[in-house]
């Protein structure tokens, strides 16, 4: 147990991912520490989502190793892997809610699979999760097609959190939300991180999120991590892309 606290919750070593002849990730190393919110940025098409999907195991890698919760995912057997999957939640970019299930059924889906809980408790927890992500209980019986974009994100987050995971992957959680909604979302991620002791791996383009929600920032470029550190480190960096990103017009507007 003590060792697990010391070690990073995600340890990625020398990852290479290739689609045909294009090498998307090239010998990438990354550590995510327990209890932190890591913001993951990089130019569009740099492979941020690919790295997320590789860690989760949706994209096969050519070389390298991935350890999550101290379990090497390549060397693990089915039950070890199942155990790891039960402890993480994933928020996909488009929400990826099951379109033929209601919001309630979507949130209860992982609970039914992994927990032995009474229907009453599941219903109450569903309402609790919806309240946590800032939705009214009334949406529980709607179908995903009847929700707005922002609500879909929130429901998807509620589903990602339904088993009270230790680690959540958020793929552009604030894209498509209005600034107030996005601000609430950042606040929400912060609150959940504090209350549930969550580790958050957040792919984002939102400078506000980086400033307000993230403890640490990692920057992806040319298939590698160009820089990792606090927001101050990023601003001090001389890397051309980082300079443009953190000193551009929008960044100045955020900093005020």
């Amino acid at each position, binding site marked *: 147990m003590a060792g697990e606290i010391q070690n990073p919750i995600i340890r990625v070593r020398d990852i290479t991912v290739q689609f045909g002849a294009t090498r998307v990730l090239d010998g990438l190393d990354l550590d995510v520490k327990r209890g932190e919110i890591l913001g993951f940025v990089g130019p569009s098409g740099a492979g941020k989502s690919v790295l997320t999907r590789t860690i989760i195991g949706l994209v096969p890698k050519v070389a390298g190793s991935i350890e999550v919760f101290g379990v090497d995912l390549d060397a693990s057997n089915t039950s070890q892997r199942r155990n790891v999957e039960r402890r993480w939640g994933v928020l996909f970019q488009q929400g990826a809610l099951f379109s033929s299930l209601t919001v309630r059924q979507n949130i209860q889906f992982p609970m039914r699979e992994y927990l032995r809980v009474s229907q009453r408790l599941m219903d109450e927890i569903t309402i*609790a999760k919806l309240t946590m992500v800032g939705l009214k209980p009334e949406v529980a019986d709607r179908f995903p097609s009847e929700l707005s974009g922002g609500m879909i994100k929130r429901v998807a987050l509620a589903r990602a959190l339904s088993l009270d995971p230790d680690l959540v992957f958020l793929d552009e959680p604030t894209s498509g939300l209005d600034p107030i909604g996005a601000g609430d979302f950042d606040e929400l991620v912060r609150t959940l991180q504090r209350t549930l002791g969550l580790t958050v791996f957040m792919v984002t383009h939102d400078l506000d999120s980086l400033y307000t929600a993230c403890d640490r920032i990692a920057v992806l470029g040319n298939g590698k991590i160009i820089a990792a550190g606090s927001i101050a480190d990023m601003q001090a960096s001389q890397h051309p892309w980082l300079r443009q990103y953190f000193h551009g017009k929008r960044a100045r507007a955020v900093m005020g």
Partner: protein
Amino acid sequence: MNGDPKLERIAKGNALALCATGTWTASFAPVLERMVADAEKLAGGSQSIFIDVSEVSKLDTFGAWLIERLRRSLTQGAVEAQIAGLSANYSSLVDEVRRVRATPVIDSSTITITGMLEQIGRAVAGVAGTVAGLIDMLGAVLAAVARTLIHPRSFRLTSTVHHLEQVCWRAVPIVVLITFLIGCIIAQQGIFHFRRFGADLFVVDMLGVLVLREIGVLLVAIMVAGRSGSAYTAELGSMKMREEIDALRTMGFDPIEVLVLPRMLALVLALPILAFLGAMAALYGGGLVAWLYGGVQPEAFLLRLRDAISIDHFIVGIVKAPVMAAVIGIVACVEGLAVQGSAESLGQHTTSSVVKGIFFVIVMDGVFAIFFAAIGM
């Protein structure tokens, strides 16, 4: 550290104190729920109620909610239950859970007689709606045809050719193979039964009339409804789901003109071609079996066939093909555009596209049979 959760009562004079210990997490939920249900009975008669959670080693949303549920049910009248000894880590989680207002779930899935009657009524009205939808689409397609005739440049040739390749050219192998086999089977069965009367050669009459008038076109139409009708519905349905059709509309395009017309036209051209190829394949298969199994020489088969059938039989068959194609196309497009947001809806409409397509094809075949009988063909 990971002790089993416990909830113990500590006597404190007039006050009720409950002490929670151990791990209050989702994995212990059944135990926790039972303990909380037991503890809820202790309410009443106490001046003050405390739930001491200082000994809880681990708390998640499930545990926090159960403590909150206990607190709520112990709170009666003026006596409010308090949560004590909350560590800083968990206080925000408990605060978060406290905001939840529990609304009872309304289960509307009970079966009643009025409900069943309502469903029957809705189904009957749905049939009328289906027919109206088909007529509506037919009108929209004809209007689009008229517009295209006036402005021929708006016709989408590339799209039509693409769909023609999909529904005609790529369908040839499977259509020819299946009709060939059906021709073989008809001939074999005919010879087997006619032989008892010494009427082997009449199998040629049966094969010719059956294949050219009915089987050729009907079988091919059913295959096309299953193969291309379902594809049309799935294509249009997934476009509808992703708002692609709305996008077309906002750009000033008519989805009927852009999406439906090329598909319909391709199908109306494809089905007569496929029906012809199918009829030829069935006759060939029947002739082959008649020769190898029935001993009817190919020359004799062809001579007999020439006597047995006239061009009328062929015309009766082939005239039906474009009409059936139009029916299949309209049903498929109506169903495709009726898809709602969910994957389940897409599946339902694809299924009903095929089922309704085949149904209407058979109905049309019956109508044609009556018509041709009346005009003496």
